[in-house]
Structures are given as structure tokens and as C-alpha cells.
């Protein structure tokens, strides 16, 4: 076995192990951390395939931002495990059916017939001056420019929708205007009034 | 409108932040005012009220005549005095304790003393290592007085004209 294969098997083992641990972890925070470990293993596998850009982006977006927000939410929630468990058995048959369907679909789509070494040979090794990003950008901005732009517009719509949802009940909300607070000057708050001095009047 | 543009320009050029940083930069190169304490000391007023001392006359006789005026005037009840007649017929203290935990360093004992026996010195950096160390006995007070007589007489003379 070459060193590459050994590294591949180690990383794949970690990936599968951490994914399983994520599912079976009882503590939600630990589950998130196992998911992070899974992302790392996946990113390392991609680096093995010389897809550094995708690997780094996976870590940057998912580990650096999405999972942080997951942890953030988990800390805010007070999860009551007993109520979750109570309904577990009731959902079991439906869950099993869905899981089986997904497994069947994945074996059909991602099986050896489509992704085997005969169909997809391992990518050729490139020299040190090969830039993964340039090739990716060339593809994105020429061949796939319309799907790319469509996806961008879709995300923009999602952002606007999210912000609109937050601002739905604006009228009943008490909020501070920070820019007003920051830009306040002394003359906005204090009025200097000159009052005639009584001692002068007495003269 | 003009005000708004002015405000925006001021904010974007960070003018307020820059003026703040200018001040700290100026102080950065200024002469430092730190006093390197054990080596350097700030001047102390002759009226400074620090650790107590019992004085003696130049001939070696202790000044205190056990009149107990200081004990009476002490607002914190920090002074305890016991007295009896000495062989030569004068009244002297057998016990003169000041509890430094109680003492508030008001200087009333010094004011009340008719013979300038109890005084407060300029010593402020004293320490004790056990709880009973807080009690200044007669011996310790006399020792403080003996050790610092020169300084005490000098500061008292400096302050005398204002009394």
C-alpha cells in the first residue's frame, strides 16, 4: 500500500466513525463537535484529491460559520430529552422506511456502476504550478455562468426574505436607534439658558 | 443636510478617534511621574500622622506623666493606660498600649498631651506579623521615640508656630 492509500483509509475511517458518533451522541454539543470532525475528515479527503479550494471552503463555510451558529443555538436551547424520547418509538417505522429509501437511492446513484474506478479513474497528478481555483473559476464564469448567477440571485432572495420575516412586527417592538445614540452631541441634550440674576435686579 | 455631510465626513475620517490617539501618543513620550517607592519617596508634611511614639526629655526621663488625657480623648478607645507611683514619688505609667487596629490616626492624643509625650511620627510603612503585633506596648512606643527623636523634634519644631 502506498502512503496515499493509508492516509485515505485513515481519513475515511475517521469520517465514518465521527458521522456515526454524531448520530449516537447523547449530548447535542458533542454531536456538533463530531460533525465538525466529520467535516474536517471530508476536507482532508478532498485535499487528497487536490481539490484544495473546495476543502478550504468547506471548512471556512461549514466549520467556521454554520457549525458555530449550531453551537450557538444549542447553548440557547434547553433541550428536554425525555419528551424527545417519548415520541421516538412512534416515529420509528416511518423513519426506517425513509432511511431505507434513501439508502437504496444512494446505492443506485453513488454505487460502483457510476463512481467506480473504471468509470471515474483517479484524477491525474498535477504539478506545483497547477491552480485549482483558476480552473474552477474558468468553468464557473464561462460554461456555468447562468446557473451560477441564478444561484446567487436565489441566495439574495433568501437573505431579503429572512430580513423581512424578522421585521414583520416592527410596530410593537421597542428598539434603540444606535446611530442616533452614537451621533448625539451635547447641544442635543443640554440647553444653556441665561437667566437674569436677581442680585442685579435689586440694584 | 450640510450638517449631515459634515458629520459623515468627520465620522469617515475617524477624526475623533485620531484626536484621542494623539493624546495617548503625547503622553507616551512625556516624562513619567511614577515614584520608585523603596528607593524614592515623596516628601511628607511635618503634620503627617503616622505611627505613634512616646518621647523622652533630653536627660533620658520619659515625658509621660500618666494623666490619661489621651485615653479620655481617644475617639476609638484605642489607648489603655495603667499607672502607679514610682519610688521617687512621681506618677508614671506601668502600661501604655495603643491598639493599631482600633486607632484611626486622628491625632487627638497628640493634641491633648500636656507634656508632648505621645506624638505621631512620619513612619507609615510599618508591618507586623502576628495579631498581637497590633498592640503597641510602652516599650515599643518608647523605642520608636528613641530611634526617631531627631526627626520628631525637627518636625514638631516646624509645626510649632501654627499651633
Amino acid at each position, binding site marked *: 500500500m502506498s502512503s496515499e492509500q493509508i492516509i485515505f483509509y485513515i481519513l475515511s475511517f475517521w469520517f465514518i466513525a465521527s458521522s456515526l458518533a454524531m448520530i449516537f451522541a447523547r449530548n447535542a454539543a*458533542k454531536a456538533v463537535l463530531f460533525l465538525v470532525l466529520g467535516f474536517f475528515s471530508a476536507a482532508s479527503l478532498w485535499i487528497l484529491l487536490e481539490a484544495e479550494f473546495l476543502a478550504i471552503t468547506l471548512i*471556512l463555510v461549514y466549520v467556521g460559520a454554520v457549525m458555530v451558529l449550531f453551537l450557538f443555538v444549542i447553548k440557547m436551547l434547553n433541550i428536554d430529552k425525555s419528551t424527545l424520547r417519548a415520541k421516538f418509538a412512534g416515529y420509528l417505522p416511518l423513519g426506517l422506511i425513509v432511511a431505507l429509501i434513501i439508502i437504496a437511492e444512494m446505492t443506485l446513484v453513488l454505487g460502483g456502476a457510476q463512481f467506480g474506478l473504471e468509470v471515474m479513474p483517479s484524477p491525474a497528478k498535477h504539478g506545483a504550478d497547477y491552480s*485549482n*481555483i483558476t480552473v474552477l473559476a474558468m468553468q464557473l464564469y464561462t460554461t456555468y455562468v447562468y446557473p451560477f448567477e441564478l444561484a446567487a440571485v436565489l441566495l439574495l432572495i433568501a437573505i431579503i426574505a429572512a430580513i423581512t420575516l424578522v421585521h414583520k412586527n416592527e410596530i410593537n417592538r421597542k428598539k434603540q436607534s*444606535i446611530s442616533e445614540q452614537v451621533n448625539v452631541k451635547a447641544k442635543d441634550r443640554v440647553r444653556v439658558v441665561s437667566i437674569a440674576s436677581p442680585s442685579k435686579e435689586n440694584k | 443636510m450640510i450638517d449631515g455631510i459634515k458629520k459623515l465626513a468627520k465620522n469617515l475620517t475617524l477624526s475623533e478617534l485620531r484626536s484621542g490617539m494623539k493624546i*495617548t501618543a503625547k503622553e*507616551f513620550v512625556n516624562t513619567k511621574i511614577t515614584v520608585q517607592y523603596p528607593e524614592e519617596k515623596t516628601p511628607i508634611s511635618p503634620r503627617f500622622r503616622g505611627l505613634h511614639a512616646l518621647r523622652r526629655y533630653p536627660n533620658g526621663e520619659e515625658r509621660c506623666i500618666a494623666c490619661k488625657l489621651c485615653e479620655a480623648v481617644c475617639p476609638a478607645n484605642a489607648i489603655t493606660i495603667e499607672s502607679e507611683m514610682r519610688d521617687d514619688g512621681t506618677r508614671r505609667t506601668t502600661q501604655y498600649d495603643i491598639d493599631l487596629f482600633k486607632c484611626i490616626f486622628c491625632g487627638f492624643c497628640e493634641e491633648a498631651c500636656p507634656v508632648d509625650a505621645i506624638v505621631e511620627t512620619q513612619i507609615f510603612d510599618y508591618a507586623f506579623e502576628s495579631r498581637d503585633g497590633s498592640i503597641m506596648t510602652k516599650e515599643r512606643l518608647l523605642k520608636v521615640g528613641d530611634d526617631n527623636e531627631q526627626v520628631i523634634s525637627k518636625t514638631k519644631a516646624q509645626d510649632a508656630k501654627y499651633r
Partner: protein
Amino acid sequence: MMELWQSFVLGVNELMPWFDGNVAAIVIILIKAVALIMPLLLTVAYFTYAERKVIGYMQLRIGPNRVGPKGWLQPIADALKLMTKEIIFPSKANIYLFLLAPILAIAPAIAVWAVVPFDEGIYVTNLDVSLLYVLAIGSIGVYGIILAGWASNSKYPLLGALRSASLLVSYEIVIGFALVTVVMIAGSVNLNTIVADQQGGIVNWYFIPLFPMMIIFFISALVETNRAPFDVVEGESEIVGGTHVEYSGMTFAVFFLAEYANMILMAVLAVIMFFGGWHSPFEGLGVLESVFAWVPGIVWLLAKSTFFMFLYLWVRATFPRFRYDQIMRLSWKVFLPMTIIWIFVVALMTQLHIGPWFA
């Protein structure tokens, strides 16, 4: 010596054939890593000393001067104190996560340095996506703080961690957008290429066309490293010590190390992105260039980053702490629009080929 080394390499290759004869390469990488980390940790130690001195000077004091001549041994004394102190575990804390937190804080802070170019050809590794690597690994550091807050099972650490999580996520976006402008000019996300592109004197450095982005980057770096005036994560006056409350001894020291290593990194990054990295400021100035030609590039890089490190301390000595929601407003309503506007400005400048930067 050479023979011994060769026989060692051969022996290891025989024992472990799966290394494909790469033992020498691995050992060299390890030596490089040690040569990077040791000076880094020493710099961190003396950066804390410099911080106390500089802030002292700005407050008309003279700072630490008792341990060793002029206080030069102060950081070593501090390190010894922290090492010998007891590590206290909160009674209902999650011990594994509690200990994992400082590790997750320090590991990325050191790992990021792998791609930092100190001079032409002086780096641990030349990754093609090194700028993204810096951002990605740098963003992992937040896990240390979040886990510290969560695993301590204590309310102030939790509050600090919540603040930290939302702050870091929002300011990562700002830093990312600010650095997009740099990438647009350089046409590369490789730090080596970005520095090489700024060759040819001060006029070619990126801080001239990207001046607002440089300021935004620096301010966001203050937030990312939890430094004053944005140190709401610690916030001594409001939440005691934030995430550090339950940490003592060496576990606290590790957080401390991570924070300062990150600060130094941000200073070096600012120089690499906007101030020409290892290039001499006298390039293209005739006589001056030849006078300073003997100075190695790494000296220029370190000198320039020292200025930014000083700026960190200067800012800390000057400004009071921001209120939490004001920092959030600064990120989303001020910095983000500004960076996006500047991306369009840079795009325009690229199209019009303005100055030496967009040739």
C-alpha cells in the same frame, strides 16, 4: 554527520515502506515547524511585556521594572507562575470539553502560521489557497472560546461565549469582504503571489488604493482577536472575565498564548496584504535602495508588523470598551456596506487600469 543522516533515512524507509521514502521531507517539515513556533512563543511572551510597558507609558507610569534588569525577566516569571499554579475544574463541568477548549484555541492560532511567507521563499508550506487557509483555520479558533463558555457550566463564561460567537461570525464576513478587494488586485489567493505583486516601492503597496479596506481590516482584526476596545468577550467590568472565569494555571495560559499569537498573526497579515510584506519601503528610490539593499526582507516584514502590534496596544490604551450592540451595528450596517461599495470601486479601477496596481 551526513552519512549518519542518510543511514537514518534509509533505515526508517526500510522499516516503514509506506512513507515512500519521504522521511527526509517529513523531518524537514518538523524542523521548520519548530523553527517557527519557538520564536513565535518567545515573541508572544515579550509581547505581553511590551503591552504592559507601552500601556504604562501611555498612562504616565513606567510598567514592570522589578524582575531582572528593566523588568526583562517579567514574562518568564509570569510563565513560571502560571505553570506551577493548580488547574481547577468546576465541579459539574464537562471535563473533556473543558480541556479541549484551550487546545482548540491554541492549535489553529499556531497552525495558521504554516502559510505565512516571511521572505521570498521562506515559509513552512506554499499552499495555493493560503489566504483562504488563513481565514478558514482562523475561524476555528472561535470553537475554543465557545466550548470554554459552554463546558465551564457557569453563567459568565456562557455569556462571554455567546457574545464571542455572534461577534466572530459577523466580523469574519467583514474581513472576508475586505480581503476580497486584495484578491481582486493581486489576482491570486496565494499570499506569496500577493506580496510579490506589491514589488516596486511604496506606491505599489495595496494600502493606497485600498486605504478604507485597510482600516476596516485592522478594526475587524481587533474584534476577531477580542482586543480592546472590542473585548466584550472578557469584559472584566460586566461579566467578570468572560470565558476565562473558570480557567486557571496552564489552561488559562494557553488561552492567553492563543490570543496573543492571533494578534501577532493579524499584524503580520495586515503587512502582507496592504504594506508590501517583505519588500523594502526604499525600493525604486535610487540611492536609498542601494544603501538598504543588504537588509533581508524578513527584517522589513517584522519591522512593519511591529508597528501594527504597537497600534494594537496604542488603541487599547486609548479607547473605552464598545457596547455590545454597537459593535454589531458597526459590522452589519457600517463595515459591510462599505466593503461591498469598495469592491465595486476596485472593479471599476481594474477596468480603467488606474495606477500601478491595476496595470
